[in-house]
């Protein structure tokens, strides 16, 4: 096998790409359709596997942490980890990555001698929760606001468009910084500010969908048969506008993780000693470049997760055919 074939095999699309019409035919295709396609594509299958692992680990570890917190047995939170992520151990301070005491030192340790691996694993649920919660809240708020504005039109629509204009005028990160600092530092305030800045994109998206759907034949028919507007929205508009947004949402999970970890890097969010991917990276800043692993490995982990989300989102956009407009 030549270089060309190898590159094509691992980076290219495998098999034939189903045309957009297959999806547009109806909702029969559903998630099975996406799943089939993603598994056939080797790169996307690997990405999907990593995301599944990340999500599954986050659910298990997050549950343990929560139960540990609720029952006042904090140690339950690190029962599955190779070492205690918040126990000081200055004997092992700034240990470079090595295979001794596998797997505790595989990513090295920080100044306090805490294993980077344990801290990364301990922090994973926070990133997963942020990604899923922010995107799903964005979709739900955007769907309610956007669909109603698009369907009914008039002044509500006008107001919505102007409000989203104002939100989208600023880079998300800058607005997120301002909001979460004003709300007071902490995990919850970061989540609230991310949700606040995340819904306008989805609102515009669902509005565009509602505008194009409301003049379609089946909606008109439903209207003529005396169906009330609420039922039309619930039965026809919502189900038909969700499909195309899935691809964008898959890509967006990665965006949320990037923004969230950048906020953490700037010191907004979870406070020490509890670890967070972004803040681990920034804590290593004074020890850079001699102790490069402290800053770089958390960054690489963030990148891996985000690349996987991006890949899946990208493949799904190809599937749906063309870029989304909002």
């Amino acid at each position, binding site marked *: 096998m030549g270089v060309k074939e190898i590159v094509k095999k691992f980076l*290219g699309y495998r098999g034939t790409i189903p045309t957009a019409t297959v999806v547009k035919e109806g909702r029969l295709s559903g998630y099975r359709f996406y799943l089939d396609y993603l598994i056939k594509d080797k790169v996307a299958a690997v990405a999907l596997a990593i995301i599944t692992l990340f999500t599954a680990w986050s659910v298990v570890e997050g549950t343990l942490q929560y139960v540990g917190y609720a029952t006042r047995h904090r140690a339950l939170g690190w029962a599955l980890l190779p070492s205690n992520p918040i126990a000081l151990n200055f004997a092992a301070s700034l240990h470079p990555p090595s295979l001794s005491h596998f797997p505790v030192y595989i990513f090295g340790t920080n100044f306090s001698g805490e294993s980077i691996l344990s801290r990364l694993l301990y922090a994973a649920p926070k990133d997963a929760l942020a990604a899923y919660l922010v995107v799903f809240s964005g979709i739900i708020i955007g769907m309610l606001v956007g669909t109603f504005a698009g369907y009914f039109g008039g002044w509500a629509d006008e107001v919505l468009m102007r409000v989203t204009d*104002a939100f989208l*005028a600023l880079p998300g990160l800058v607005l997120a910084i*301002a909001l979460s*600092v*004003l709300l007071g530092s902490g995990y919850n305030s970061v989540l609230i500010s991310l949700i606040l800045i995340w819904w306008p994109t989805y609102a515009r998206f669902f509005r565009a969908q509602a505008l194009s759907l409301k003049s379609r034949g089946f909606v008109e028919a439903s209207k003529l048969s005396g169906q009330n507007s609420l039922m039309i929205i619930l039965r026809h508009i919502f189900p038909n506008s969700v499909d195309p947004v899935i691809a964008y949402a898959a890509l967006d999970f990665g965006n949320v993780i990037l923004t969230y970890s950048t906020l953490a890097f*700037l010191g907004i969010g979870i406070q020490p000693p509890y670890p967070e991917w972004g803040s681990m990276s920034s804590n290593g800043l004074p020890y850079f470049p001699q102790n490069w692993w402290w800053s770089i490995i958390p*960054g690489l982990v963030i990148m891996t997760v*985000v690349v996987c989300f991006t890949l899946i989102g990208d493949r799904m956009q190809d599937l749906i055919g063309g870029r989304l407009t909002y």
Partner: protein
Amino acid sequence: MQISTLIYLVRRVINAVVTLLLLIFLIFVLVHTIAPTPVALARIYCGSPHCPPAELQVIIQQYGLSLPLPVQFAHYVVNIFHGNFGTDTLYKVPELQVIGELLPITLELVITGLIFAVIIGLFTGSLAAANRNNPVDYTVKAVYLVTWSAPVFLVGFILQLFLAYELKLLPPSGLANPTLGNPSPVTGYPYLSVVPQPLQGWLSGLVRAITSPPLIAAAVDGDWRFFVSAVHHLVLPALAIAITSFGVVTRLTRASMIDALDRDYVKLSFMKGLSKNRVVYGTAFRNAVIPIITLIALLFGFSTAGAVVIEDIFQYHGMGYFTVQAIYNLDYIAILAITIIVGISVIAANLVADLLYGWADPRVRLE
């Protein structure tokens, strides 16, 4: 100037002003939702959660925080249009003065980064389009999917580690070599006596702001050793910004190049016997480049946000570095001022992009 061009211009400017007013309104609403009572608001203005009650009362009086909300909003807008963003809690000088000197430093960095990003993006995008669906295309796609998924701080750290510390090609941090001494500031404004008295302070502030970025300061002073040092220090952070943002340009260039390559005039060029390179980079490229202009504002906002992190890593003392300090010191006034000023910059970038697009593609003006 044609009447349609004029209408286009006026409409764009009105649009920008309305968006700006909405942005100010949005921030006002958000601040008042988070701090609904005058005392809570005064705490924000005080800059410390442990402000003595007497001082809070003084602040409420001073800023009129117990007035009805519409009056407060009117004051807020008037203040912003007068450039009055409050007094910095750390430096004890007007916020506009601090940001006025720091923003141009960041703009220099961001604009350099954007130029790099557009160059890399145009090159890789047209490369991918010319080699559509073959390994070159897939490699370009793999590269930009990875770079736009990378957190900006990781890119900064990796560049610093390899290019500055390992290969020692470029200096790792700072605005310029600290041993050189800063270029002397512009003094004695000969033109100041010409303008009327009330404008003089404003104008000298403007001149100080424009000459604050290291490159411009060195060029104005004629200090070329400092200039070269400043260029060396600028490359790495600008490259970090470019690497995280060029993917968007690549993607759009590829799409619009593929579209352009299918057009009849391109086929005609091939039929005339022009070489592939000549057709791709000469004929098709010129028309495919126009949509890239619409990305300028998007990229500008994205890079300005990225500059906050990049300036922290590279110790590049511009507005981004100041933002990080403000976060650590819980300097709310500074953060609100930065938010509004970044908003104004992005809206201005939007306006510039719109006008450029109208200039490059006359059809837009007629809509």
